[in-house]
C-alpha cells in the first residue's frame, strides 16, 4: 500500500447539522434500522447517565467526574463500529465507550467514588482500565495490537486519546511504533477543542491532528465527531484496514466538550458563552434524532425505550454508588504483588494493629 500523501482537512460528515444526509458518497449510511435506533438509544442513555454521575458528584457521593457531554456521537459511533473481540484502551472521559462495551456500572463508579483505582473487571470485556496519565496508554494499545499479530488474530485495538494527548512524546512513539510494525491499531482522537484551559489552536501548529499521520506514513482521517454515522463509518473503514493487515489509522473526530474538564473545573474562566452556544447548536443527539425522524425511525416507541433504559441505568448507578462498601484497607497490601512481600506483610500487620488500637 503506498504511503498516504494527503489528509482531507474537511471532516467526513454523513449527517449535516440540520439532520439531513449530506452529499458525502464515500461512506455508507444504510445500517439496519435496529442499529440506527440502537445508536440513538446508546447516545441518549450515555448523556443521561453522564448527568447522573454529575448529580452524584454534586451530592458528595463521587469525588470527581469527567463528563463526556457533547462527545456521545464520537464515542458511541466509534465503539459500535468494532467487534466485541476487539480491544479498547480508553482514557478517563469515555463513559459512552465503556457503557457500550458493557463494563458494569459498579466498576465505572468505583474510580470516581474513590473506592478503587483504574478498573476491576475491565479486561474480561477486552477493555483496559481507564488511563489517567495523558497519552501514555496509546503505547499499551500498540503492544496489545502487536500481541494480536503474534496470536494470529484479526482483532483490532483502539486507543482513545484526546487533542491534548497528541502533544505528548508517548503518542508520537505509539504512532511511530504502530506504523513501523504495521500494528492493527486505530488511534481515535476526540478533538474536543480543549485540554482543560488550553485550546487546540495552541496545542499544535500543524494544519490538523489528522495531518500528523502523514509523518508516520499512515492514513489520517478527519471526521465530524458530532455525527454518529460518520464516526461509525470512518472507524469501520479503519478497523477493516487494520484487520486486513493494512496497519494503523489516525482518526481525528472533531467534537466539543460541552461540560467542564471535570467537576472540579470552571470553564467560564477560559472560554466564552458564545462558543459554547455555537457548539450546542451542533449537538450530536438532536442532530441524529432529526436524521432518524427524516428516515422515519424516530417515534414515541424509541423515546419510551430510551427513557426506560435511562431510568433503569440511573437508578442502578445510584444504587451501586451508595450501597457499595469501601474495600478493606488491607487489600492494598494484598494486591500490590501477586505474593505479598515480607515488608508489606509487616506493614499490613502494623496498620491492623493501629486500627485495632483506635477501635
Amino acid at each position, binding site marked *: 500500500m503506498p504511503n498516504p500523501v494527503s489528509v482531507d482537512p474537511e471532516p467526513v460528515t454523513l449527517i449535516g447539522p440540520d439532520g439531513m444526509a449530506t452529499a458525502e458518497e464515500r461512506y455508507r449510511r444504510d445500517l439496519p434500522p435496529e442499529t440506527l435506533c440502537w445508536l440513538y438509544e446508546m447516545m441518549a442513555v450515555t448523556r443521561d447517565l453522564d448527568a447522573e454521575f454529575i448529580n452524584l458528584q454534586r451530592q458528595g457521593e463521587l469525588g470527581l467526574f469527567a463528563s463526556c457531554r457533547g462527545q456521545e456521537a464520537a464515542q458511541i459511533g466509534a465503539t459500535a463500529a468494532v467487534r466485541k473481540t476487539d*480491544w479498547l*484502551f480508553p482514557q478517563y472521559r469515555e463513559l459512552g465507550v465503556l457503557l457500550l462495551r458493557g463494563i458494569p456500572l459498579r466498576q465505572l463508579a468505583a474510580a470516581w467514588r474513590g473506592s*478503587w*483505582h*483504574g*478498573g*476491576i*473487571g*475491565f*479486561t*474480561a470485556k477486552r477493555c*483496559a*482500565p481507564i*488511563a489517567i*496519565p495523558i497519552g*501514555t*496508554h*496509546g*503505547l*499499551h*494499545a*500498540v*503492544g*496489545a*495490537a*502487536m*500481541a*494480536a*499479530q*503474534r*496470536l494470529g488474530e484479526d482483532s483490532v*485495538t483502539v486507543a482513545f486519546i484526546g487533542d491534548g494527548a497528541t502533544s505528548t*512524546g*508517548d503518542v508520537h*512513539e*505509539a504512532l*511511530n*511504533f504502530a506504523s*513501523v510494525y504495521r500494528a492493527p491499531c486505530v488511534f481515535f482522537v476526540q478533538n474536543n477543542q480543549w485540554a482543560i484551559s488550553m485550546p487546540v489552536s495552541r496545542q499544535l501548529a500543524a494544519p490538523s491532528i489528522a495531518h500528523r499521520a502523514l509523518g508516520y506514513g499512515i492514513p489520517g482521517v478527519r471526521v465530524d465527531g458530532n455525527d454518529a454515522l460518520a464516526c461509525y463509518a470512518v472507524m469501520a473503514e479503519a478497523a477493516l484496514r487494520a484487520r486486513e493487515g493494512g496497519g494503523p489509522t489516525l482518526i481525528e473526530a472533531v467534537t466539543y466538550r460541552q461540560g467542564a474538564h471535570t467537576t472540579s473545573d470552571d470553564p467560564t474562566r477560559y472560554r466564552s458563552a458564545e462558543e459554547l452556544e455555537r457548539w450546542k447548536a451542533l449537538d450530536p443527539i438532536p442532530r441524529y434524532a432529526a436524521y432518524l425522524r427524516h428516515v422515519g425511525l424516530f417515534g414515541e416507541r424509541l423515546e419510551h425505550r430510551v427513557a426506560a433504559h435511562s431510568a433503569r441505568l440511573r437508578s442502578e448507578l445510584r444504587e451501586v454508588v451508595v450501597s457499595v462498601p469501601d*474495600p478493606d484497607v488491607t*487489600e*492494598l497490601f*494484598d*494486591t*500490590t*504483588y*501477586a505474593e505479598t*512481600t*515480607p*515488608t508489606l506483610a509487616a506493614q499490613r500487620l502494623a496498620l491492623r494493629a493501629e486500627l485495632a488500637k483506635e477501635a
Partner: protein
Amino acid sequence: MTQIVERPAGTPEPTGPLLTAVPVTAELTMVQALNRALHDAMAADDRVLVFGEDVARLGGVFRVTEGLSETFGEQRCFDTPLAESAIVGIAVGLALRGFVPVPEIQFDGFSYPAFDQIASHLAKYRMRSHGEIDMPVTVRIPSFGGIGAVEHHSESTEAYWLHTAGLKVVVPSCASDAYWLLRHAIASPDPVLVLEPKRRYWTRETVSTATAAPPIGRAVVRRGGSDVTVLTYGGLVATALHAAELGFSRFGWDVEVVDLRSLNPLDFSTVAESVSKTGRAVVAHEGPRTLGFGAELAARIQEELFYDLEAPVLRATGFDTPYPPARLEKLWLPGPDRLLDCIEKTLERP
C-alpha cells in the same frame, strides 16, 4: 513447547514450565549466563518475547541477546525503534494480552525516558486492577559504573525503582545468580527490574542449570565473619570480598559479607541474623549517599536491631554529585579503601 494461549485475567502463572532448562554445568561469563537464561526461558515458554534497541540483529551492545532472533525468529526477538518509553509501554500492552515480555533498556541512564511507563503503569497495574492483571514483565538494564563509560552510561537507578511500590528489583553479583535471578524474574507474575552490573559482565563462574536456585528474595552470606557485616549487592560484592581479605590479612578483622541479591523483596532476616551476630554493619552501594538503599537499610537496622548494635551503621557509597567523568570514577566509587575505613570506624567504637 507450550502453545501461546490467551490467559484470562487473574489465572495463575505457569511457573513450573517457565523454569525448565536443559541441565548444563559450564564455565560462563555473566553475559553468557544471561544469554543462556534468555535462551532457556524462550525455549521453555513461547510467550516469552525479547525486544529493545539493537537486541536482534546485533545481539545487544553487550551481546546478552546474541542468537535469540536467529533461534526463535523475529516475532519473538525483535529490534525496536529508539524510544525507551515505548519499549516499556508496548511491554505493558503485550503483557495485558498474555505475553511475557523481557525488554532491554540499553543503558541505565536511558531508563529515565521510560520512568513514567514503569512507575505509573508497569508497577501499578496489579493493584489498580485489584490483583486481576498480571504484569510478568522483566526489564533488563545494564547498570552501574566502573567500566570507564561516557556520561549517562554508569547510573545507579535502584533507589528510584525501590521507591516505586509494585516493582521487584534484583541485582546479580555473579554469573550463576545472573542466570537464576533472570529466570525467576521472567517466571514472576510481577514486574522485575534486573539491574546487571556491567563491570562484572566478563567475570567467569561455574553455572549449573540443573536445579533451580532459590527464588527472588533470598540474600546469601558470601563470606562468614564475626566482627562486622558488610551489606552490599551487584558489582560491589567482589569489592567487599576483596576488602574483607585485605582487612583480615592486614588487621585480622573478621568481616562477614552479605550479598543482598534482591533489594525488593528484601531478605531482612538474613540481614538481621548477620548484624545481630556481629553487632556492626556497613552498607556499600555505588549510587549517591542521600536516600540511597543504604539509608533504608541503616534505618531499618536501627529500628529493629538497635539493642544488638555496638556501633552506628555506616555507609560506603558514591557522593551526592552527578556520576563523574571516566577518569575520576575510580576516586568517586566506593572501593576497598573507603569500605575498610568504614569498617575500621565501626570497630573503633566500644
